[in-house]
C-alpha cells in the first residue's frame, strides 16, 4: 500500500523540474550525509512520501498562479500606443471569487487528510516486543545514551541494530534533558524531536541499512550548540550484540593503578566522569569507561586520536570555546600520564 502511494506521488513529482527531482532520489545521501530526501528508516521514509506529495501539490499551485500572474503583468501592461483613458472598472465577481475560495478549500482538505494519516502512523506506532530501548539525555553540549535493559551507558556515539523486514528491530528513544532544550535530528533516520527538561519525549527509528548516520542538535542550547554533533552507528545484529557485550564490561582493572589513573582520580575529573569499576563516578560529563571504543571525542567535534585527546584534556575551550569542561591546568607529564590512562579505556 505504501509502495503504491510512493509510486503515484513519484509520477506526479516527475513534473516538478530537474533541480528538485535530483534531491528526491532516495539515494545514499549523495548530496549530503544529512539529506532529508535520502531516507533510510520507516519514519524518515514515511515523511519523505508525504513531502513528495506536498511538494507536488504546492508545485502545481505555484505553476498555475505564477503563470496567471506573469500573464496578467505582461498582457495588461500599459503600452506606448495606449490612449489616456482609464480601463474599465470592475469591482468584483461572485462566481470567480467563489471558485478561488472553494478550490483552495478542497486542496487544503486533501493535504490535511494526507498529513493526519502520517502523523498517526509515526507518532502512534506500536512498540513491538524485542524493540531496543535507549534513553537519550541531552547535556550542554554532548549526548548521553543509556540502554536500561542492556545495562550499557555510553556517550555521543549511538549504536543500534539494523532492522529489516525479516528481523524487525526498531529502536525506541526516550528523550530527556539534563539542562536546556536540545533536539535529536538525524535526518536520514527520522524527523527531529526536542529534548526538554521536565518533558520526556519519545521517538523511534528502524534503519534498513548498516552504516554511520550523521546529525546534530537542532534546538539552540547554548554557546556550543553548533558542535553538539550526532553519530548513529547502525550495525548488523551480531556486531551490535558484540558491542553491547563489550560495553557492559567494567574498565580493565590493573593491580597497580597506573600513574595516569592516580592523577585522574586525584583531580576534579572524577566529579564529572565515570569509569565503571573505579572511584570515578561523576555523571555531569560523558562516561569514559570505554572511551577508546569511540571514533570521536568532544561530541563528534574531534577524531579520537592520542594527540587530539591530549589537546582536548589540556584545554577544551581551545577546541570548543564555551564548553563546560574546564582546563585543569595539568603539567605536561601529568597530561601525558592521563592521556596514556585514557588510552587503556577500551
Amino acid at each position, binding site marked *: 500500500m505504501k509502495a503504491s502511494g510512493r509510486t503515484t506521488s513519484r509520477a506526479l513529482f516527475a513534473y516538478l523540474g530537474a533541480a528538485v527531482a535530483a*534531491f528526491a532520489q532516495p539515494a545514499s545521501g549523495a548530496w*549530503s550525509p*544529512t*539529506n532529508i530526501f535520502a531516507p533510510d528508516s520507516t519514519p524518515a521514509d514515511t*515523511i519523505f512520501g*508525504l*513531502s513528495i506529495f*506536498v*511538494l507536488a501539490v504546492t508545485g502545481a*499551485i*505555484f505553476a498555475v498562479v*505564477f503563470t*496567471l*500572474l506573469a500573464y*496578467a*503583468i505582461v498582457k*495588461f501592461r*500599459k503600452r506606448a500606443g495606449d490612449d489616456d483613458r*482609464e480601463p474599465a*472598472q*470592475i469591482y*468584483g*465577481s461572485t462566481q470567480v*471569487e467563489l471558485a*478561488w*475560495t472553494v478550490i*483552495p478549500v478542497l486542496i487544503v482538505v486533501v*493535504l*490535511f487528510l494526507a*498529513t493526519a494519516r502520517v*502523523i*498517526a502512523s*509515526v*507518532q*502512534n506506532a506500536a512498540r513491538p516486543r524485542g524493540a531496543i530501548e535507549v534513553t537519550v539525555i541531552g547535556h550542554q553540549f554532548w549526548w548521553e545514551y543509556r540502554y536500561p535493559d542492556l545495562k550499557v551507558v555510553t556517550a555521543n556515539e549511538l549504536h543500534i541494530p539494523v532492522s529489516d523486514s525479516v528481523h524487525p528491530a526498531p529502536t525506541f528513544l526516550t*528523550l530527556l534533558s539534563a539542562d*536546556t*532544550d536540545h533536539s535529536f*535530528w538525524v535526518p536520514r533516520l527520522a*524527523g*527531529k*524531536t*526536542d529534548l*526538554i527538561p*521536565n*518533558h520526556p*519525549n*519519545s521517538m523511534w527509528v528502524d534503519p534498513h541499512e548498516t552504516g554511520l548516520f*550523521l546529525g*546534530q*542538535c*537542532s*534546538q*539552540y542550547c*547554548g554557546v*556550543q*550548540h*553548533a558542535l553538539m554533533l550526532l553519530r548513529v552507528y547502525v550495525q548488523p545484529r551480531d556486531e551490535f550484540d558484540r558491542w553491547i557485550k563489550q560495553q557492559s564490561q567494567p574498565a580493565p582493572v590493573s593491580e597497580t593503578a597506573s600513574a595516569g589513573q592516580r592523577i585522574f582520580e586525584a583531580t576534579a575529573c572524577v566529579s564529572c566522569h565515570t569509569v565503571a569499576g573505579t572511584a570515578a563516578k561523576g555523571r555531569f560529563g560523558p562516561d569514559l569507561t570505554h572511551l577508546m571504543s569511540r571514533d570521536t571525542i568532544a561530541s563528534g567535534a574531534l577524531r579520537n586520536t592520542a594527540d587530539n585527546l591530549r589537546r582536548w584534556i589540556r584545554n577544551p575551550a581551545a577546541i570548543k*570555546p*564555551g564548553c563546560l569542561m574546564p582546563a585543569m591546568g595539568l603539567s605536561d607529564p601529568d597530561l601525558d600520564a592521563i592521556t596514556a590512562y585514557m588510552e587503556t579505556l577500551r
Partner: protein
Amino acid sequence: MSAGPIVLRETGTVRAPLVETLHQWVTTVDHKRLGILYIVYALIFLILGGIEATIMRIQLIRPLNDFVSPQVFNRMFTMHGTTMIFFVAMPLVFGFGNYLVPLMIGARDMAFPRLNAFSFWMTAFGGLLLYFSFIGGDGLYGAGNAPDVGWFAYAPLTSQTFSPGHSTDFWTLALLVSGFGSIGTAINLATTIVCMRCPGMTLGKMPLLAWMNLVMSGLVILAVSPLSAAQIMLMVDRYLGGHFFDTQAGGSAVLWMHFFWVFGHPEVYVLVIPAFAFASEIIPVFSRKAIFGYPVMVAATVGIGFISMSVWAHHMFAVGMTSNSNTFFVLSTMAIAVPTGIKIFNWLGTMWGGKILFKVPMLFCIAFLFQFLIAGLTGIMQGAAPFDWQLTASYFVVAHFHYVIVGGILFTIFAAFYYWFPKASGRMYSESLGRLHFWLFVIGFHLTFDFMHVPGVLGMPRRIYTYEPGRGWDIWNVIITIGAFFQAAGILVFLYNLLWSYFHGEIAGSDPWDAWTLEWTTTSPPPGYNFATVPEVQSRRPLWDLKHPEDPDWKYE
C-alpha cells in the same frame, strides 16, 4: 487626467534655529511627525540589524571559519532577530499606520495624540535599552554583554542558571517597554479608525488600508499582551524566586513556548497585514483599476485575524505534543492558506484588464506577489507536521520566514516608501535610483533566500556558528553570503535616494500618482491640520468620483 493643484512648499524667510526644530520634533503630538519619527528610528535599527546579519553571513561563508567567536555569533543572531522584529518591522508598520490612517480616513489627527507620543517614546526607549546591553549587560559576573538566548529566548536558557549577568534582563525589559508602546499605538489606531472617520465614510467605504490596520491593531492587543505577561513572569523567575519557567525547580519550558508563540504567530500577521494594506492601495493605482472584490478582501483579512490566533503551536511540532494536538494545528495552519490565497487572487483580479504602470512602487508590489506566493507554499510544506519534523529549526525555516518578512513585508514597505514619499516630503524620489535599488535588492534577495532553502533540506540546523566540511553545505553558504552583499548595496542606494530626493527631488504636487484616496487631496506635505475643511465622501474612491463625475464609484457600491 486631472492633475491636482501644484502647491510649492512654504519657505519661511527666517529658518527656525536647530534647537527649536529639535524641540518641536521631540515634543510633537502630530501623527505625521510621530509617523516619520517611527520610520526614521526603524531605518536606523534596520542598519544595525543589517550589520549583525552581515557579520553572521561572513562567519558562515566557509566551514570552520573563525571570523567571530561562538559567543559573539550567538549574540548576533539574537540581536538581529529581536531588532528586526521589534525595532524595525513593528516601528515601520506603526510609522506608516500613524502617518497614513488619519489622512486616509479624513481625520485631523489620531484619537489620542498624547498617547501616540508616549507610545513612540516607549518603543524608542525599548530599542535603546536593548542596545545599551552591549555596554551594561556584563553585570557583576563578567558574563557576556548582549543577549544570546535567541530571539524567542526559550526557557530554561533564560534562567539565572544558564544566563547569569544582565543580558537577558535587557532583552526582557526592552520587549516589555516597547510592548507597552505597541499596545498603546494599537489602541490608538483602532479607536481612530472606529471613531474618527470623516462624514460619509461608513465601515464599508473605508480604504482597505484602514481595515487592515484595524485588524492589525486588534492582533497587537491580543498578541503583545501575553508576551508582556510572559516577560513579567520571566523577571519574577529571575529575581523573585518564581518557578514558572525554571525547570530545575519543576517549572515548565513548554509553557514559555506557548506564551511566546501565542504572541509570535499573530505577530507575523501583525506585520504582514499592513504589508497587504500597502499592496491593496498601490496595485489598484498602478493598474488604474478599483480593487477587485473589496468585501471579500475585508472578509479575508478579518478571517486571517481570527485564524491566526489559533495556529501558534505549528512552531512546536517537534516539541512532542500529542498526535491530536499536532493534527489540530495542521488543520488551522492549512486553513489560513485559504483567505491568504484569496488575497493573491484578488490582486491578480485587480491587475487583470488594467493598464499596469511599472513605477518603482509597483515593481516592489509585483515582486511581493511572486515572493509571497512562494513563502505561502513553503509555509504549507511546514504546516504538514511530519514534513516539519524535518524542516523546522533548519535553514529551510530560516529561508521561509525571511521570504515572508523580507520578500513579503519589506518589499511592500519599500513600495510604500516610494509611493508615499512624495506626500510626506513634497518631492519626488529619483526613479532611476529607485530602479537600481529594486534590481539590486531583488537579485540579492533571491541569491540569499532561494538558495538558503537548500542547506536546510541537506540537514543544516539554524543558529550554528560553524559547520564542518563534507556536509554538502559549503557552496550554498557562499551564494547566500554573496546575496547578502547585494542586499546591503540595495539598502545603501535606497537610503541615498531618500536623502538626495528630500533635498533635490522634483516638486511632487498634491497628487502625483493620479490616485483616489483622501491623502492625495491635501498638500504635500500636508499641513498640521491635514485638511482645511473636513472632507465628505460617497464611495471608497472619493477622488475617482471627483475626477470622473460622469462615472462615479458610488453608483456601483
